[in-house]
C-alpha cells in the first residue's frame, strides 16, 4: 500500500520535474523511490496485528477495495525489482528525446497500475488497474512519433486493447448481474454457497473476463497484436511490456481466477487448457521462422505466458503453484531484461535483425556471454533459473487432469530451444559484419553483471523464492 503511494507521488513529481527544473535529479530520485517502495513490501510483509491505528485501518484496505496480502506483496516485489532494472536499462535511452520527464511520468503511472493489478480485491480496482497500466503503454508504444512502425504499434495496441477492455467490462457486468457484488471474496462466497445453481450468463461473464485477461498477457489465440506491437515499439518499451506489464497482467489473472472463481475451476480450466496448448504450439512454431530477434522474443513471451497460465491452471490447493508462478515470473523478467539490454546495445537501429548478432563473440565477448545465459534461462536449460521455473510449474501440473499439457510443453520447448540456439550460433559461429567492437555503457555493464549473476543465483538456490509463503 505504501509502495503504491510512493510510486504515485513519484509519477506526479516526474510530471513537474521539467517545469520546476529538477530534471537532473529526477533519475536518481526515481531509482531511490522504487527502492523505497520495494523496501515497503518488506515492511508490510508481516502486518502488526495487535494495535492498528485508525489511519492504518483505513489505508490497509479502503473498504476492501485493495488488499496487499503476502501474494500481492511478493508480486509487487517482482514488479518493482524488474522496474528498477528497467530504469537502469533505460538510463541513456531517452537522452535524445525532448520530453524525458513525460516518459518517466508515464512509466511510473503504468507501475501504479501494475501494483494495483497485483493487489486488487474488487472488480472496480481491477478495471482501473488495467486501464492505468494500459493507457501509458499505448502512448509509450507510439512514442517515436516520426517512426511509422512505432505509430502502427501504438495504434494497434490501442484499438485491440480497448476491445479487450470492452470484453472485461462486459464480463464484469454479467458477473455482477449474477452475484450482486464486485468483491472478489463475495463472488467466491456466492459460488460456493449456490452449489452449482448459477445462472448461465455468469459463466459467460467469467469467460469474457478470461478472454480479456488472456489478451493482456498475450496468450494465443488473442496474441495477434503482440508481435507487431513488440517489434514496432522502441526496444526499451518492448522490454517494459514483456516484463512489468506481463507480470502485472499475470498477477491479475491469477488473483481473479484463483481467488474469485476458484470454485468453478473446472469450467474455465478446460478453456484455459486449450488456450495454453494453442499458445505453446503457435508461439514456438512461428518463432522458429522469425528473422528479427525482437519479434522472436515477442513470440517467446507468448510461450512463457502459456507456462505461467499452467501454474494458474494447476492452482488447486494452497501456495505451491503461486510460488512457482512467482519464481517463473521473476526468472522470466530478469532473463528478458538481460536479453533486451543486449539487443538494445547490439541493434541500435531498432529492428533487431538477427544478422546484427553475427560474430558478437568476437566483437564483444562479454555481451555474448550475458546473452547466452539469458537465452539459456529463457529456453529452460539446467542450472539457470529458467530450468527450475519450468520444472516447478511442471511438478504442480502433475496432479491435475491436465497432464496432457506436459507432453505438449516438452515437445514445444524442444522446438523453442531451436530458435534460442539460432541466436547463439549467430553469435559464436557466424562471421561478423564488421570487426568494430560493440561499445556498452557502464550502467549497462553493471546491469548485465547483476542480471546474469541473479539468473544463475536463483537457479542454484531456488528454495528462497519457492518457500517464500511458508
Amino acid at each position, binding site marked *: 500500500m505504501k509502495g503504491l503511494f510512493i510510486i504515485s507521488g513519484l509519477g*506526479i513529481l516526474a*510530471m*513537474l520535474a*521539467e*517545469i520546476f527544473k529538477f530534471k537532473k535529479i529526477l533519475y536518481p530520485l526515481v531509482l531511490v523511490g522504487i527502492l523505497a517502495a520495494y523496501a515497503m513490501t518488506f515492511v508490510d510483509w508481516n502486518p502488526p496485528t495487535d494495535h492498528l491505528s485508525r489511519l492504518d485501518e483505513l489505508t490497509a484496505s479502503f473498504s476492501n477495495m485493495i488488499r496487499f496480502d503476502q501474494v500481492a506483496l511478493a508480486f509487487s516485489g517482482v514488479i518493482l525489482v524488474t522496474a528498477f532494472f528497467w530504469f537502469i536499462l533505460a538510463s541513456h535511452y531517452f537522452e535524445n528525446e525532448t520530453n524525458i520527464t513525460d516518459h518517466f511520468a508515464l512509466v511510473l503511472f503504468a507501475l501504479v497500475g501494475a501494483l494495483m493489478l497485483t493487489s486488487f480485491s474488487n472488480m472496480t480496482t481491477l478495471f482501473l488497474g488495467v486501464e492505468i497500466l494500459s493507457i501509458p503503454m499505448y502512448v509509450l508504444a507510439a512514442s517515436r512519433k516520426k517512426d511509422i512502425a512505432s505509430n502502427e504499434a501504438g495504434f494497434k495496441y490501442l484499438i485491440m486493447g480497448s476491445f479487450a477492455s470492452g470484453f472485461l467490462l462486459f464480463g464484469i457486468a454479467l458477473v455482477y448481474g449474477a452475484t450482486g457484488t464486485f468483491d472478489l471474496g463475495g463472488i467466491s462466497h456466492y459460488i460456493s454457497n449456490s452449489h452449482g445453481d448459477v445462472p448461465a450468463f455468469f459463466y459467460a461473464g467469467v469467460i469474457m473476463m478470461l478472454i480479456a485477461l488472456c489478451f493482456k498477457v498475450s496468450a494465443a489465440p488473442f496474441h495477434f497484436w503482440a508481435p507487431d506491437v513488440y517489434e514496432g515499439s522502441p526496444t526499451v518499451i518492448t522490454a517494459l511490456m514483456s516484463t512489468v506489464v506481463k507480470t502485472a497482467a499475470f498477477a491479475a489473472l491469477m488473483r481473479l481466477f484463483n481467488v474469485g472463481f476458484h470454485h468453478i475451476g473446472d469450467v474455465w480450466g478446460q478453456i484455459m487448457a486449450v488456450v495454453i496448448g494453442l499458445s505453446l504450439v503457435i508461439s514456438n512454431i512461428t518463432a522458429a521462422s522469425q528473422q528479427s530477434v525482437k519479434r522472436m522474443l515477442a513470440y517467446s513471451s507468448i510461450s512463457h505466458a502459456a507456462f505461467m497460465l499452467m501454474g494458474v491452471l494447476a492452482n488447486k490447493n494452497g501456495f505451491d503453484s503461486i510460488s512457482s508462478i512467482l519464481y517463473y515470473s521473476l526468472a522470466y523478467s530478469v532473463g528478458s531484461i538481460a536479453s533486451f539490454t543486449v539487443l538494445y546495445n547490439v541493434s541500435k537501429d531498432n529492428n533487431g535483425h538477427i544478422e546484427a548478432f553475427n560474430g558478437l563473440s568476437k566483437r564483444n565477448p562479454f555481451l555474448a556471454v550475458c546473452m547466452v545465459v539469458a537465452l539459456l534461462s529463457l529456453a529452460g536449460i539446467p542450472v539457470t533459473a529458467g530450468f527450475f521455473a519450468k520444472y516447478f510449474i511442471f511438478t504442480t501440473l502433475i496432479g491435475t487432469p491436465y497432464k496432457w499439457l506436459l507432453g505438449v510443453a516438452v515437445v514445444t520447448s524442444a522446438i523453442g530451444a531451436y530458435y534460442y540456439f539460432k541466436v547463439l550460433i549467430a553469435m559464436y559461429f557466424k562471421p561478423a559484419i564488421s570487426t568494430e567492437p560493440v561499445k556498452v555503457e557502464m550502467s549497462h555493464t553493471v546491469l548485465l553483471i547483476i542480471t546474469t549473476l541473479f539468473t544463475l543465483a536463483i537457479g542454484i538456490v531456488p528454495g528462497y523464492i519457492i518457500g517464500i509463503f511458508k
Partner: protein
Amino acid sequence: MNATNTPMDYLPIVMMFLVAFGFVATTMFLTHKLGPKRKTKIKLESFECGIHSEGNARLPFSVKYFLVAILFVLFDVEVIFMYPWAVNFKDLGLPGIIEVFSFIILLLVGFYYLLAKKALRWED
C-alpha cells in the same frame, strides 16, 4: 435519509422535452408553409458572405483542436465527480472535503502542468 425516486417522477422533464420539441417542430413546419418560395438556381447555391465556395468542406484540420477537445473531456470527467459530492456536501462533512480536495488538487497539478507545457497556447 436515503433519497427515493420512481421513474414516474421524470414525467415533468418528459413533458418539457415534448413541449420544446413540439414548439421547434411546429414553428419550422409553419414557416415553411406560410413563407413564399421562389427557387432559382442562383438562390439555391451555397455561399458564404457572398463569396462563392470552392473545393470541399471536409478538409483535414489541425490536431490542436483535438488536443483541446481531449483535455476538455478529461476535466469534464473531473467535474462530473463533483456533483455527487455537492449533493452530499453536508452529510459528508470534513472527510468529504478532504477526499474531494485531494482529488481536485491532483488534477490541478495536471492543469498547472498543461499551462507550463503551453498545451493551451495556440501558437507554437
